[in-house]
């Protein structure tokens, strides 16, 4: 058994979890919305990638300049038409609404695309790998997914820390009422955050579809791992989400190396253990119930 290789593969897998989880973390940190349809939106991204790459006859990567803006627009539309309205009716309504959206997406995908598993063509990248010696082989696709996750998280963190938009997002996450009072236009802030959340989910969906297969029900499992990565890392902390994703990935691969039957169970046990010992996560960034915090969301 090669533990070093297992850990490395786990870290790379964790990048994928972090990529899908960062949108969930962003949406919750800013809008207080637990989007139960997040995984399904990622799967929608995979199907859209399949549709576009089939229609254009190109690897799915080439379709990203079309796919990501479309996903961003869908996120904004969902915020304006659905989430924003639901948020006016308390914290439970968005949960129910996104649950309904999740079921609707899954059923629509089953009708439109059948339940057959599908895969995306990643071109030559999908099969390429390189050796690091000592029996360690790294897939270029896994490495690309991990580096993409790091780039997305870095970009988001830079935007949140150093732009006027980022300051407005963090202020809104800190105190919605006061954000309105000081002149922040909260609706556009929410809409862009929702757009980014869905775009990153769609990007993650493309990697899910390229690395493995997907079907209309893949979103539910995806959501669980994303949710666990967010909670382990600390809600509202983007880098915490990456650490959370990597913790899940390493656990899954290392335990799977020993006994595949316990790999997923071990992941859930790690989640349960962190939730018990540190309910705020490893890097707590935002706790909505506390009026004054030393470090707010994404700070």
């Amino acid at each position: 058994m090669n533990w070093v290789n297992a850990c490395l593969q786990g870290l790379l897998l964790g990048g994928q979890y972090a990529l899908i989880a960062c949108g969930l973390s962003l949406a919750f940190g800013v809008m207080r919305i637990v989007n139960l349809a997040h995984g399904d939106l990622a799967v929608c991204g995979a199907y859209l990638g399949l549709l576009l790459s089939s229609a254009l006859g190109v690897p799915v990567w080439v379709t990203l300049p079309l796919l990501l803006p479309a996903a961003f627009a869908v996120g904004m539309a969902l915020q304006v038409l659905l989430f924003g309205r639901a948020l006016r009716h308390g914290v439970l309504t968005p949960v129910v609404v996104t649950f309904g959206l999740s079921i609707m997406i899954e059923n629509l995908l089953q009708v439109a695309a059948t339940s057959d598993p599908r895969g995306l063509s990643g071109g030559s990248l999908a099969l390429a790998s390189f050796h690091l010696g000592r029996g360690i082989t790294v897939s270029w696709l896994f490495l690309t997914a991990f580096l993409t996750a790091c780039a997305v998280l870095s970009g988001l963190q830079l935007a949140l820390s150093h732009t006027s938009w980022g300051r407005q997002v963090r202020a809104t996450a800190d105190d919605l009422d006061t954000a309105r009072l000081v002149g922040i236009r909260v609706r556009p802030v929410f809409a862009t955050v929702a757009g980014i959340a869905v775009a990153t989910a769609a990007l993650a969906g493309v990697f899910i579809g390229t690395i493995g297969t997907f079907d209309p029900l893949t979103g539910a499992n995806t959501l669980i791992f994303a949710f666990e990565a967010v909670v382990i890392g600390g809600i509202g902390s983007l880098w915490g989400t990456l650490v959370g994703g990597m913790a899940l990935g390493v656990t899954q691969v290392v335990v799977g190396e020993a006994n595949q039957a316990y790999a997923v169970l071990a992941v859930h046990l790690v989640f349960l253990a962190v939730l018990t010992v540190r309910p705020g996560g490893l890097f707590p960034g935002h706790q909505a119930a506390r009026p004054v915090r030393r470090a707010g969301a994404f700070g």
Partner: protein
Amino acid sequence: MTEPGPEAGPPVPDPPLLEIVHLDVFYGDFQALFGVSLSVPRGGATALVGANGAGKTTLLRAIAGAQAAASGSVRYAGSDVTTAAPYRRISRGIALVPEGRKLFPSLTVEENIQVGAAAAASGGWPLERIYEAFPMIARRRRQHASTLSGGEQQAVAIARAVAAAPSLLLLDEISLGLAPRVVGELYETLAGLRSAGATLVIVEQDLQRAMDACDDLVCLLEGRVALAARVADVSRDQVIAAYFGEGRS
């Protein structure tokens, strides 16, 4: 130079910067303001006093657009802003320093100020001018707002509102919980802002300080205007009587 004709009347007073007419505000079924009317002259300072629950904060929030008016009107600089969103009112020149400071704790001092300035139509005050007006926060600019003392937090809250370059600055209980020396410094800063042309509406529990700092005084009692007068024209006892509703039938 043209001499005024013999038929010229007395000089026409400037129209008020802020005019509130018959304002009613509700929280659900609870009515907080009952037909409140008042006007705030341009360039002046108006003290808004009253017991807890009299409706002072509600009135300021209604002026700032944070609380919807059920009826009545809020006119600012000649325009009806009764239904305008807070960001529109800020871009027109109305800024509120909310009760309890309400800083964004995860943002630094400078970021809090930048958030305030971003709402201004003109781009707001430059940071250098802000730090000149509020020297006590200049050396704290990189600190998170939640790590400051109460007085410094209050100064940042005022600076955040001032950064939007307001013509009308609404201040809600800025002296609450602060040492008298710090309050004195804050009021000195406000005097400077007034000299620079800002109009102030100050909610203040310290009656003497309010009367010292302002030209006009409005006393609210249970959501209604109990007294509105020039400070020079009323005695402290008259204000106290209005404050407690003495002499009401």
